């Protein structure tokens, strides 16, 4: 891979992660347990969408095929998306969503802190701005994990179930492949292995305080970075891309 191809792949992965998770969180609009949470989850979704827009624009520019953020978000097929499997998982109940948020935002925060030193200046700039946003996302997930885990019998049961459901998809976050190896060599991104200890320690601390059990590492589904997604991802894309595909170039 050339350096430009590696930078493109890194921007596209992180951009797709943000875009897809943003869409999942936006599905909570008007359906959250309380009005305050409705606003909180959609605020987080908008932060992620803002990051994704910059990253996809950057990826499109590097790629040099004339594709802008809209082309990349709305006109690619399922197999072209390189987001991880965790962010595309269905919301489930509020406990599941909070579990996904905790696991993802803890990872994303560690990743962004490293990316602020990236040799790709756009990635570094996006990371510097996003660190503050994601620190709040993580705090939001942490506060709810503590309250649901250490709350009532029912909230504890649901929070644990959500955690068990999301857990297998976290293995993929720390996977290494050709892109991550090249990214490390070129100083574009961090070694996934290096992110693991910090993530383990942060997640374990929250789970212990929330009286939750760390799920066992059983199966480790993978494939997102190669465009192999889980069953419901196609449905997400159908909804997300429908308007743009039906009315190409539609504007507000």
């Amino acid at each position, binding site marked *: 891979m050339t350096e430009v191809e590696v930078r493109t792949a890194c921007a596209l992965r992180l951009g797709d992660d943000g875009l897809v998770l943003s869409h999942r969180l936006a599905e909570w609009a008007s359906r959250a347990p309380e009005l305050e949470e409705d*606003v909180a989850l959609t605020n987080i979704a908008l932060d992620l969408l803002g990051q994704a827009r910059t990253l996809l624009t950057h990826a499109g520019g590097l790629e040099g095929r004339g594709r802008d953020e809209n082309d990349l978000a709305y006109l690619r097929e399922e197999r072209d998306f390189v987001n991880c499997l965790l962010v595309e998982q269905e919301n489930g109940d509020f406990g599941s969503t909070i579990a996904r948020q905790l696991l993802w935002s803890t990872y994303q925060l560690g990743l962004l802190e490293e990316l602020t030193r990236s040799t790709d200046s756009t990635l570094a700039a996006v990371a510097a701005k996003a660190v503050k946003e994601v620190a709040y996302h993580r705090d939001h997930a942490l*506060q709810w994990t503590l*309250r649901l885990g250490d709350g009532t019998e029912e909230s504890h049961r649901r929070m644990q179930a959500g955690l068990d459901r999301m857990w297998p998809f976290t293995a993929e976050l720390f996977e290494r492949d050709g892109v991550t190896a090249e990214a490390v060599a070129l100083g574009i991104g961090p070694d996934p292995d290096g992110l693991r200890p910090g993530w383990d320690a942060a997640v374990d601390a929250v789970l212990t305080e929330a009286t939750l059990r760390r799920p066992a590492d059983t199966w480790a589904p993978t494939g997102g970075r190669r465009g192999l997604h889980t069953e419901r991802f196609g449905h997400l894309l159908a909804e997300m891309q429908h308007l743009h595909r039906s009315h190409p170039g539609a504007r507000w």
Partner: protein
Amino acid sequence: MRSRRGLSHTHAGSIHAADATMALRNARDVYTRRGEGSSIWVVPASAITASSPDEKDPFFDPAADKVYRHPTFYDIPDEVRNL
């Protein structure tokens, strides 16, 4: 909510929350979306003692006819900007 340093906090609105920590975050999420604030206080509704509409007359009417309490009888020099 305090919009910027040096100004007083003003009432922004009401929110629901399980406890004070969450109330602060909910207030942040609901009321600072457009950069309105640099500081937030949250107070449980049960801690607020409010005047009653029934007491409106004895509370507030007596001040209505005392014009001499307003600083309208002083000549203010042009140089004084903030009084």
